[in-house]
């Protein structure tokens, strides 16, 4: 493996591209392919006042909020499948007034990343007309106008300038997002930064292309030649990537298709602990603050648990894994 200026340790990448107050986004969706190793490292380093953009990045969002890293959150869905229909630390932070939230829908958030990726100021959609998403703003107008990094309007409803073309009279325009930094976890990346994602991409591709800096963690780090066999399978070309970190199990405890499943035991234990302050502190101290790095968490969890979530080669997930 030849080192390049992009290949670095995760700890280095987090230090280099993160800072207090950063506008950031994370890849994945609820229990799948969250960049958990990166998130735990951010939590350990204790960044504060982060402005987090998410669609439905359940596990990662709740960890960052639970650690007190997030000051402002723009989000569509803070749930985590069966273990937490509403993410528990998120709910608590909102109900306690500790977190400023701006609500959008999943499509709106995806479109906002797409607009950022495409270099346009907004995207139109027909979603949300008549809803409180359009009328109720979590970030006040005054706050928006005072902060040049936040767009002045949550969204704009406009007449269709093409009459009734497309069977639409009105459109909702949602503003572009260009995060300072985005973290994603992928199955395969090469040393130049090109990524190949197996299974669903969620909004990772748009998030990466919208972002000024992109830190990729990967299960497999390969020479560029390997991914050049089928360029049509590489969703993120290296142009967009700032750092590549080889972190096997970097998505754990969320699932990484064709590699491993989510760890239902871990997610349930997290959710149980999250319900109560003292228990949460104990759980996080043991699993996050008390370990030096992601490998130490994996060692703590143990080989048996990792063996139990190994993906079946046919289906890409752990067949008959106990999840109930």
């Amino acid at each position: 493996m030849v080192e390049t200026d992009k290949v670095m340790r995760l700890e280095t990448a987090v230090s280099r591209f993160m800072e207090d107050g950063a506008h950031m986004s994370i890849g994945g969706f609820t229990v799948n392919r969250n960049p958990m190793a990166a998130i735990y490292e951010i939590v350990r380093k204790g960044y504060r006042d982060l402005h987090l953009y998410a669609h439905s990045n359940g596990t990662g969002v709740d960890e960052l909020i639970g650690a007190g890293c997030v000051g402002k959150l723009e989000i569509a869905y803070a749930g985590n499948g069966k273990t937490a229909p509403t993410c528990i630390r998120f709910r608590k932070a909102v109900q306690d007034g500790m977190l400023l939230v701006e609500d959008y829908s999943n499509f709106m958030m995806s479109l906002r990343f797409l607009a950022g990726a495409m270099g346009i100021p907004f995207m139109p959609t027909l979603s949300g007309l008549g809803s409180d998403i359009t009328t109720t703003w979590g970030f006040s107008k005054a706050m928006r106008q005072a902060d040049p990094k936040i767009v002045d309007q949550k969204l704009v409803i406009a007449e269709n300038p093409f009459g009734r073309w497309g069977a639409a009279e009105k459109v909702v325009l949602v503003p572009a997002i260009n995060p300072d930094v985005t973290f994603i976890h992928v199955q395969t990346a090469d040393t130049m930064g090109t990524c190949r994602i197996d299974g669903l991409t969620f909004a990772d591709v748009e998030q990466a292309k919208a972002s000024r800096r992109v830190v990729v963690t990967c299960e497999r780090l390969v020479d560029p030649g390997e991914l050049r066999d089928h360029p049509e399978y590489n969703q993120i070309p290296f142009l967009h990537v700032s750092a590549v970190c080889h972190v096997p199990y970097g998505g754990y405890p969320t699932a990484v298709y064709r590699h491993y499943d989510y760890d239902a035991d871990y997610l349930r234990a997290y959710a149980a602990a999250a319900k109560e302050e003292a228990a949460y502190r104990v759980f996080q101290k043991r699993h996050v603050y008390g370990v030096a790095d992601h490998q130490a968490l994996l060692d703590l969890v143990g080989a048996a648990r990792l063996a139990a979530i190994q993906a079946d080669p046919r289906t890409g997930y752990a067949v008959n894994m106990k999840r109930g």
Partner: protein
Amino acid sequence: MTATDYSLREMMTLMAAREIQDGDIVFAGTGISMLAATAAKHINAPNSVLFFETGAIDSLVEELPLAVADPRVMYAAASNAGLLEAFATMQNRITGDRVIAILGAAQIDRYGNLNTTAIGDYHRPRIRFSGSGGGCDVASFVPRCIAFMQHEKRKFVQRLDYLTSPGQLTGRGARAAAGLRPGGVSVVITDKALMRLDPATGELYLDRYYPGVTIAEILDNMQFTVDTGTAREADPPTAAELGILRERCDPQRLILG
């Protein structure tokens, strides 16, 4: 043959499954909605197409997914793309008009509007929920939406604390006036009854009450009243339906409990 020993959760699941027609593109969420979509595929709509907001189309569900991002939705799909492709498929009328969606909510009003965001003041809510997810998008785009609700007074409300997913908004004509295409919640399935939305009034009406449930009991557990003039008793699950649901769709009883 009808069965007598079934849970309300099973009844709800099968009531929803029966709404799905063969060939429908079925937008499924998590939990009971995903189970209903799976049940329809196995029971009455073998050519229905399972479809998830995460981007998976026509997944081969060998094990019940516990989230729409569960890797179990990725296996042997026709296509694994992303959120943009999924929602575009619904926003695009060519494909979107063939979609039937299954949603859940914390609150619903007489016009089929849904709240999945917050109870109390939005800025400092008494209870905060997960938020829209794809719910607002689906209710904006899709002509037929099934809402799953627990039949409780605090859930069938006079006025939503927050309107997350648009139904008929303030009633007949309001949806079009807001710029939305026809759609939103058309069926509500609870643990007591099935209600439908009357396009003529823009309001819900009682269509079916479950065996053993009285109309009074239904109305007593809602903050608003609905027309009950055409209500009839629902057919209970058949033994065949229940067998497939229990043995093929959720053998681990992950959703049926």
